[in-house]
């Protein structure tokens, strides 16, 4: 039932707002609204009940194993939430003068510093509001850098075919054309193809390492040299930073600019789709182009160290601003708190145990007859199972496996990404899952395999235990129903 169906004309939750105000007479009528908007009119109890019950229809990390590859669905420590929501933080106006902001700014400054440290970059801007916006900032900086050097003929961005869709989409938004670079069966980039593609038209290369195939790009130093020698810059898509956190650093691999999805690696919640943060780090030569604002340390006359915002005056070459204020501040606070909880030692453990969990699951699944996409290498923090044999022999798809997993109490892994592996499941357990959960998931896949062999149709109709079974997506796209209205329903 929709919230609108609990509505009754004239029903109000009066306690929530003022009452009895008259329409203002100092605003011309033609600027006033004529009819009240069709919002629901419900009691607080109805709203609480509706949205509480609705929430129970979600799988979430707090209720289920959620091994969604590339998304790093790890535990979100509850204290990060409660401390980021301290009244002092919630009520701070984004434009409050510096003297009312030193507590918040200290957190942001230290977050910048810590992110520089774990990524090996020279500067960090926290403003991008998700990975994709971080990518935009990065690619825009690459463009600004070349432009500043008068190097205006570099019109191409190279992107491996394993890349996430945001990479090419971003390059386009920044006015570049995209050239795809193929990947070898080993999971490494086809360096020969790269050599052929790179040239004076190359603005840069966008790379995820470990890649979305769940392996480390072994030729990274050679690749960096190739691109740099051609005058291009290297962009690091930090979606998989969790795999190497505290072990190796993109800056040391030769990357010039990176984004970090704080909602992945630094455990801010995914919120049913966001908010995230795509904080962006740069090597020394790109520092002048960083998006604003950035927090700087300063010396106040009287009270010792303090912090201030860098503005366009300080950074005339900045690519500019990406949001009205400074991005998803509350997300940044959560990431900051998480990093302070973990500390240096905890960071290293993240990379190690995320990797251990993935390799353990891969070993177990291989032992139970599943086919790994890249079978003879260690996985990073995630790995791919391909069900192409099952698709061919039993006519059950990765989608069928995914849906059936829901019945068994597991969120499905990422399916059909990366695009180059047919019928794939991209499985990312994260470091926060216990061995028994991994074992349970392996058993669930084994059970589904047996079900597929016994009765493939049974899988085609899964899931059975969810509030709905398979939904008609074609109808959704054809008979568009995107908003409820009193007349229609």
């Amino acid at each position: 039932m929709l919230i609108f169906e609990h509505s009754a004309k004239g029903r109000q939750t009066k306690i929530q707002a003022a009452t009895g105000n008259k329409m203002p007479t100092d605003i011309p009528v033609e600027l006033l609204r004529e009819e009240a908007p069709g919002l629901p009119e419900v009691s607080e109890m109805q709203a609480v009940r509706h949205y509480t019950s609705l929430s129970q229809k979600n799988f979430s990390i707090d209720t289920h194993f959620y091994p969604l590859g590339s998304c790093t669905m790890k535990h979100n420590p509850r204290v990060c939430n409660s401390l980021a929501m301290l009244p002092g933080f919630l009520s701070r106006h984004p434009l409050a003068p510096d003297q009312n902001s030193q507590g918040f700014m200290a957190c942001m400054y230290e977050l910048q510093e810590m992110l520089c440290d774990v990524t090996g970059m020279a500067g960090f801007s926290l403003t991008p509001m998700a990975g994709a916006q971080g990518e935009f900032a990065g690619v825009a900086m690459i463009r600004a850098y070349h432009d500043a050097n008068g190097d205006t003929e570099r019109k191409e961005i190279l992107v491996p075919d394993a890349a996430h869709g945001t990479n090419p989409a971003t390059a386009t938004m920044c006015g570049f054309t995209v050239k795809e670079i193929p990947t070898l069966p080993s999971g490494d980039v086809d360096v020969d193809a790269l050599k052929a593609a790179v040239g004076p038209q190359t603005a840069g290369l966008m790379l995820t390492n470990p890649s979305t195939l769940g392996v480390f790009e072994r030729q990274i130093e050679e690749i960096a040299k190739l691109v740099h020698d051609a005058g291009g810059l290297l962009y690091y898509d930090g979606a998989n930073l969790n795999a190497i956190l505290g072990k190796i650093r993109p800056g040391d691999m030769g990357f010039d600019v990176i984004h970090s999805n704080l909602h992945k690696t630094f455990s801010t919640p995914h919120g049913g789709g966001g908010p995230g943060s795509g904080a962006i780090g740069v090597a020394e030569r790109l520092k002048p182009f960083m998006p604003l604002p950035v927090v700087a340390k300063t010396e106040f006359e009287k009270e010792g160290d303090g912090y201030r915002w860098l503005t366009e005056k300080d950074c005339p070459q900045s690519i500019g601003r990406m949001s009205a204020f400074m991005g998803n501040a509350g997300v940044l606070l959560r990431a900051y708190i998480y990093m302070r909880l973990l500390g240096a030692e905890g960071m290293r453990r993240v990379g190690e145990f995320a990797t251990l969990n993935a390799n353990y699951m891969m070993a177990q699944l291989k032992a139970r007859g599943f086919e790994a996409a890249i079978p003879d290498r260690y996985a990073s923090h995630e790995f791919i199972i391909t069900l192409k044999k099952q698709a061919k022999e039993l006519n059950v798809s990765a989608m069928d496996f995914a849906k059936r997993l829901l019945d068994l109490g597991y969120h499905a892994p990422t399916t059909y990404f990366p695009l180059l592996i047919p019928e794939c499941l991209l499985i990312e357990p994260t470091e926060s899952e216990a061995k028994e959960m991994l074992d349970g998931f392996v058993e669930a896949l084994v059970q589904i395999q047996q079900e597929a062999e016994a009765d493939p149709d049974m899988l085609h109709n899964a899931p059975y235990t969810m509030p709905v079974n398979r939904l008609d997506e074609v109808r959704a796209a054809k008979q568009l129903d995107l908003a409820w209205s009193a007349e229609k329903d």
Partner: protein
Amino acid sequence: MPFVPHTEDEIKEMLSVIGIDSIDNLFDEIPSHLKIQGLEKVPAGLNEMGVNRLMQNRAAEDGQAICFMGAGAYDHHIPAAVWQITTRGEYYTAYTPYQAEASQGTLQLTYEYQSMMAALTAMDVSNASLYDGASAVAEAVLMAVRSNRKSKSRKILVPRSLNPVYTTVTNTIVKHQNIELIDVAFDGVTGKTPMSALEGFTGEDITAVVISQPNFFGTLEDVGKITNWAHENNIFVIAVVNPLSLALLKPPGQWGETGADIAVGDGQPLGAPMSSGGPYYGFMCCKKTLVRQMPGRIVGRTVDQQGREGFVLTLQAREQHIRRSKATSNICTNQGLVVTASTIHMSLLGPEGLKQTAISCHQNTQLMVEKLTAIDGVDLVFDQPRFHEVVLRLSKPAADIINTLADQNILAGYDLSNDYPAQDYPELENCILVCATELRVAEDIELFAAALAEALK
């Protein structure tokens, strides 16, 4: 080990299943000179107790000022139920509903959100959110360029009375695609965008005009006339609106004869705390005919195999994981959780609660104008119909006054002659932009007036 549940025994067992001796073996493929020994700027981990102490001190440092600042972020009352429910693990720790059957909570809520935004703006459809109000304007400009088939110019009229940081952000994002943003002046007396300034463009090939209601100065624009003029000239209308104000003011879908084409804005006033600027969310609504050019996720209602109602992400062909370099936008992770809060917020207030809140803001602002302009050295700059924000000229440098009051824990407003994000309004020297929401009751206003009078002495 913080957030790592492995016991020593389990680690051993897992390593033996993999067939290696130590976790380090898993990193054997990585050139050893790349491996780091430790971190320099990350201090040792704290436990919860330690981090509590730290963060409580930090939050206390910033105090809790009485806020008369607006300029795009507003201090509204948020019913307690909103975030208590929003932070339930099932909303807070889920992700994009890729598995629809296991995500009906988020999906249905998003459908309800879209319905509410469509109702509030009187537009046909809404997406599931963009990052924030500023970037939503940029996306709207890109969308207008994609969809206004009658225009080839890629020229966009942007009034100076639009929040200047929205203009800056829009420029950052759209400039790579050869799109030109053209300034439109405001009237120095009324603070409105005068028809005369627009009519200079009549007949030119212009892709879209941006109209902000209320505008950055709190002044109400002649949105009906501007919309009619634009449509007569095949110019798309991008409305930038404060969603709370729409409970009171004419919604963009009803501007002029035909309504705006795209309506965007920042959802912050509908349930997001000010929290240093985010997370908020950008909303975007449009006419039905433009839906396939809309960026961002969209949820649709459909049925399952048994004919039961259900919800799915739809029109995904627009998105970057399908269309990659040809997508309508690169946005992927959006602002879902704030949308969740906002949906609950709107449900709790309902049409009447939102309207009452909007009127309270208006009344408090009018009272504030009365009290402040009674002070020697304070003048009203634009004496026009307004919504909850106003420009005042001070007899002393605005920055000094703002600092003086900040030391007394009063945020006196936004300095219109400052250099953030660039020298915004040199013509408005010593002017501040001040806002009173429903929370700034008479008692607060008296306090503000007294402090301001003292500071201006």
